[in-house]
């Protein structure tokens, strides 16, 4: 096991790019290698040691045996863990764009917020963000219709617009709220949102599942009411409570599933039966 600790000396107004400092590249590096290394900033490169003190302890035979601990203010450090395939990165601060983008394995834990593009087109591994994220969390890069294909993203706070865009596998969990168009163009995988969603989840969704435990604002016309289910089981996880199940987006013959908590979203039930009675009767009908 090799532990590499980054201790910040100074910050930069122009972002440092950390795409070369991933376990896959640096598992053989000693301190002297870091001291020689120049980190890209804008159109230039500057010695990494201008910005960080680096301590290396232990040895690693493969990327998987690397643990990077990055301390300091990382609001201008982007591409952390981008394209990594193994190992572990701990960030003790909020981080800049593209954290964990296109990673295929390993673990990244961000003790703070993440800027946009966190975990884009991820194909494996685990990305945990203890704070909030901005737009395009776990989305695809522009033009690509196959987004995140595997792995798991957990956001403890709120997620920005178009979270899980083009999701094609894996799982995204948002414990807070989600902004508009969560899971747009999604074709596979699971999105779990514990908080509220203000508008239009699942636009032009082909397949996959979105579970919303909080309050849903506007629902798109492309979603058709299916039934009310109790304690649905989605890929091995059981969600307690009653959920309204929709299928969509019908505009493109989509077969996606949208589950929203029935108790929190009683007003939505009204569309299919004004009163609580009718709601009950749907349930009873199903129980027959």
């Amino acid at each position, binding site marked *: 096991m090799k532990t590499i600790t980054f201790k910040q000396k100074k910050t930069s107004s122009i972002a440092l790019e950390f795409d070369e400092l991933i376990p896959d590249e640096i598992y053989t590096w000693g301190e002297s290698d870091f001291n020689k290394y120049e980190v890209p900033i804008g159109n230039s490169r500057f010695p990494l040691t201008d910005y960080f003190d680096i301590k290396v302890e232990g040895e690693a035979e493969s990327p998987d045996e690397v643990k990077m601990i990055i301390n300091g203010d990382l609001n201008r450090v982007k591409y952390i863990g981008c394209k990594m395939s193994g190992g572990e990165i701990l960030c003790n601060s909020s981080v800049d764009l593209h954290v964990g983008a296109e990673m295929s394995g390993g673990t990244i834990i961000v003790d703070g917020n993440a800027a946009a593009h966190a975990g884009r087109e991820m194909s494996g591994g685990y990305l945990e963000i203890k704070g909030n994220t901005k737009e395009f969390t776990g989305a695809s*890069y*522009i*033009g*690509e*219709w196959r987004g995140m294909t595997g792995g798991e993203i957990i956001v403890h706070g709120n997620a920005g617009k178009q979270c899980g865009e083009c999701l094609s596998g894996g799982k995204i969990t948002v414990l807070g709220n989600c902004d508009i168009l969560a899971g747009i163009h999604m074709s596979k995988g699971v999105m779990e949102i514990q908080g509220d969603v203000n508008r239009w989840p699942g636009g032009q969704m082909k397949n996959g599942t979105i579970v919303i435990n909080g309050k849903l604002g506007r629902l798109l016309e492309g979603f058709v009411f299916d039934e009310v289910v109790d304690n649905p089981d989605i890929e091995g996880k059981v969600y307690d409570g009653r959920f309204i199940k929709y299928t969509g987006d019908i505009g*493109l013959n989509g077969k996606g599933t949208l589950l929203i908590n029935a108790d929190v979203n009683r007003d939505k039930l009204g569309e299919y039966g004004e009163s609580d009675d009718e709601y009950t009767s749907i349930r009873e009908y199903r129980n027959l």
Partner: protein
Amino acid sequence: MEYILKNGIVYDPANKVNGEKKDVMFKDGKIVEKVSSDAKVLDVTDKIVMPAGVDPHSHVAGPKLVVGRLYRPEDSRKGVTQKTNLLRGESGFSIPSCPTTGYRYSRLGYGTVVEAAMPPLEAKHTHDEIATIPNIDIPALPLFGNNWFVLEFAREGKIDELAAFISAWLKISKGYGVKIVNPCGSEAWGWGMNVHGINDKAPYFDVTSKEVIRALAKANEKLGLPHSIHIHPNDLGHPGNVPTTLETFESVKDIDKNAAVRNQNLHCCHLQFHSYSGNSWKDASSGAEEVAKYVNKADNITCDVGQVTFDETTTMTADAPMEYDLFKLSGLKWVNKDIECETAAGIIPIIYSPKSPVNTLQWAIGLELFLHIDDPWKVCLTTDHPNAGPFIRYPRIISWLMSNERRMEMIDNEVHKWVHSRTTLPTLDREYDFYDIATITRAAPAKIHGFSDRGELTPGYNADIAVYDINPNDIDPSKEHELIEKKFGLTDYTIKDGEILVKDKEIVKVKESSTIWTNVKGYEEEEKAVIEGIMPFFNQYYSIKWENYPVHDHYLSNPIRVDVEASK
């Protein structure tokens, strides 16, 4: 500057040189018989020397291409490289940026690439892009098959006027030859329709595809253009299109060719897409044998193949209704571009997978055509870049053609089982040799396009030469297919107009490209009359002024003018 390429093993089919150990000399950009003792010696002992490659049909510049590049950043992202002191950063896989296109063709040993579809209205744009592609010469073929004026002339049977129109429009668009795409079909697409077979009529214009093809072929021969009509027949990609293809061939049988530089009066592009039997994809099968049989018999037909390479690529063609059919199948992002009074175009990303029965069928049909057509002078290597695959896959196709073993390996293990039940590919054990490869990649395409300055190592011809790091006496292509693919992918030398562009597998020089266009002489009066006749229409129904229509010199990069004396 004088050079001598020493001790190479030369394949020059135009001069019937088949693997002879021989020196090739050039001076001031031209091949010469001999050089002085000051000549610089380039030692290529036991390496393959061929004329530089000629791609007879590819899509590298123009309005379609740019939309492809603009709307597929996910493709552009794939081939990104860092700039060097000499080269700009590259980008793209199936639709590389303009500089990238030039670099990659150069590395393959190509010197000339024909841009196969140029709408005259967008000719300035096409030439603007051609000027941005370095290292290769690019003639462009303007689209005539759905042009409103052409449809009118064809309906009225006015061949003289049509000839004058072509002659004028080649000058106006700085085009090289006559391209026809899905005649009448792209016009029907203006109303969301298509035509089926060659006897279907374009709406309103009341003219059949067959009439358009015959009229254009007659006008083409009347002018005696260096290239014959270059046709993408109707019903591309539809199961059961073999009869349409054969009727298209048959329709020009009686039209005499009128150009000594070529043998054919019709070149059919990407024939693979036009050789499907059956009625629907359920019962589709290969029609390659039947089509090849016709080509073998006919002296007036040549073709290129449009070989599927099993990649994720981008289809783009002026056959817009076909692209919409593809969109309905895959649902991927669809581009359409209708050009007023002239043509239409469509684009859609496509993933050719060996696991797919249809894609396997397409792959097999391409190879069957190569193997069934006996005379390599009648068939050229293309992927209809980027439609069936990107051009950087040419070396892989060469390795398939040279190795039955590799083909059988794929048939047995990699592709869908339809290859056994619906094609004859497993029964074909013919293998191409280096001489055949040189024919289908340089000599034949050059002859078909009527080039008289390239495609051969004849003294006086351009010094366009490729040297591959292969010793033909020391390699077994049928076993070492991987090596063949690798070595044909990157030259030891690519020489263009006597300048060394690639040396030891690295680009060492970037030069501006040229465009080649045909200047018909002797039709000036008729051209004027035709233009005067259509001017009222043009002023009323085109959205730009006439002054803005022709390609002026500003947009031409180092034009090479081919003068043709029209015989009336």
